């Protein structure tokens, strides 16, 4: 197999990992603030349909990305309103959001299935895109691919180096203590949920305006759930998301390629490989239960009421 084939496969992995990275980075921030939002799949669906409709009606795929982001943000705010304000159960609310997102996206997108748009253009980064090997793998993609990579490092920097990030983490660890210290627990959680939603919506819009420029009900096809899983896989550490998302996308594309190359392997086993790889990785991580417990935001999934 020559180098060009490898390069094109690895470039494919970087693109396939993009929606996972975007949605998982958003969910990670949300969970670090103590909110477990299982509605990522539904928010991605809403982002995908709104993104497609905006791109289709305006003729501008970038507007589609923006519309997807805003739609996802609104979904995130809805989640925050229900779980922070009304203190609804987070798991149930998240699942409801997924179901709602599925139904709503089908309803909104009713007349648009089967329409075609011109997808986002590739934006080769000047200078970087001409690098041998790395250029075509990393720097000849559409905008959201770069955003996803920058986002992972951005979230890492935000959580570990900024005051706001510290506030967010302390809210996630112990909202009561944070509140007594004068931190704005609810506002922080609202913001985190909105960010998580916006990134999920953006990821959905990437699918419908760039990855497969079309709208079809069910096109998110479980990627939101994988994003939620990746957050646990990464033990709530942003940079580890890169490893997880690339591993997952890489095994997925690798199994398709091994078939195209005519290797004599069982296709059902191959299809299960990405999931198997994640399970193996999780087992390796959880050999040390203490490490998981130390990393898990302590208040994850628990409602907070300010005692007065």
């Amino acid at each position, binding site marked *: 197999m020559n180098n060009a084939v490898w390069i094109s496969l690895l470039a494919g992995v970087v693109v396939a990992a993009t929606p996972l990275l975007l949605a998982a980075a958003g969910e990670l921030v949300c969970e670090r603030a103590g909110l477990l939002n299982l509605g990522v799949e539904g928010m991605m669906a809403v982002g995908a349909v709104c993104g497609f409709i905006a791109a289709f009606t305006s003729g501008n795929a970038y507007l589609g990305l923006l519309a997807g982001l805003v739609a996802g943000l609104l979904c995130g705010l809805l989640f925050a309103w229900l779980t922070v304000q009304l203190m609804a159960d987070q798991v149930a609310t998240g699942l409801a959001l997924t179901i709602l997102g599925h139904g709503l996206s089908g309803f909104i997108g*009713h007349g648009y*299935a*089967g329409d075609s748009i011109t997808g986002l253009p590739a934006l080769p980064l000047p200078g970087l895109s001409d690098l041998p090997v790395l250029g075509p793998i990393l720097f000849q993609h559409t905008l959201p691919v770069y955003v996803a990579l920058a986002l992972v490092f951005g979230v890492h920097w935000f959580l570990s180096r900024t005051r706001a990030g510290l506030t967010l983490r302390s809210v996630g660890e112990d909202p009561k203590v944070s509140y007594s210290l004068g931190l704005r627990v609810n506002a922080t959680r609202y913001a985190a949920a909105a960010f998580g939603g916006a990134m999920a919506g953006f990821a959905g819009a990437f699918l419908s305006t760039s990855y497969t420029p*079309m709208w079809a009900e069910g096109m998110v096809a479980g990627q939101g759930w994988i994003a939620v899983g990746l957050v646990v896989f990464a033990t709530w550490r942003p940079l580890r998301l890169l490893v997880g998302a690339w591993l997952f996308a890489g095994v997925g594309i690798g199994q398709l390629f091994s078939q195209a190359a005519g290797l004599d392997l069982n296709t059902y086993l191959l299809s299960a490989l990405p999931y198997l790889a994640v399970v193996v990785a999780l087992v390796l991580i959880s050999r040390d239960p203490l490490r998981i417990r130390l990393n898990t935001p302590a208040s994850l999934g628990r409602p907070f009421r300010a005692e007065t």
Partner: protein
Amino acid sequence: MSTRRDFLKTAAGLAAASAMGGLPMSAMAADGYYKIPLKKPLKIGFVYIDPIGNIGWSYQHELGRKHMQEVLGDQVQSVAVENVADARAEAVFRQLASSGHQLIFTTSFSFMNPTLKVAKEFPNVIFEQATGFKTAPNMGNYNGRFYEAQYLSGLVAGAMTKSNKIGFILPFPIPEVYRVVDAFTIGLHETNPKATVSTVWVNTWYDPGKEREAAQTLVASGVDVIATHTDSPAPMQVAESHGIYAIAQDSNQIKYGPKAQLTGVIDNWGPYYVETARRVLEGRWKPESTWGGLKSGIVQLAPLSPAVPKDIADLVMKRKAEIENGTFNIFTGPLYDQSGKLKVPAGKSLSEGELLGLQWFVKGVEGKAS
């Protein structure tokens, strides 16, 4: 949407051969026709598993319904219920049957058993179920010989490929899939004996992301024509963006691949719906298993791309005519399997039963048979 047509289709092919014969005759008139007390106009219900949308499996059935309504005019009054999940199917059939619909088309393989159950409850309603294999006195089934159009597509692909490598994206290892891949490859070798087919199983009927990735990896491995038996236009989009060719599936996908689409398989249920409704109206309906292809019009060939050379276009039209008038059998020997073993000797052809249960790839298909 992933559930449409369902995994159970595997069973369809296997069992179809044995199930096609045994119809209970007791409820029928002496002439074999199943007669019901008709009310005019005939109310007809259509049940689709997907949202209708503007492309794909259910959309093609909706086009068929509209065609029937147009041809038969005020003799019939039809309604479509879309996006019916398997779990809700029975309730929808009952509701249609009890609201005066006397002919009901259920258009997913997974609707087979619910249709059978409801058909027994409503003897004065006639049911027609797509792609299944069970029948009852008031229930028939129908399916398409999609492989006929795939054979013609293979003729075109063989002439157009420069790398002599074709990619085929496959959903599940069922006879329908082996039939289309084998027929395609037989056509391919007729115009280009050196060309090979690389297969990729994606184990889904519909997942745009995965179909795109499969198409991308096929492109990376050097194919320059992509065919698929999955349902999304993602492979067509990939072909268009790489400046290579693709074969459309279910619907005309020219919107997604104005330059890429060479030709393709189009499902066309309209003529069948007209004929069936007419038979019911005229008291000439009986429960049958219909497996129609190019001749009956259930399967059509998408328009040939202007890039196809004239001699190939002529050959396609010649073979199409021969298939339609029954003088050409695609699965005629000598046919070898992947290991080079002679499966069909020269001068012999596969029987209908063998076709229904087909489980092997012909020589020239690379990649595992399941």
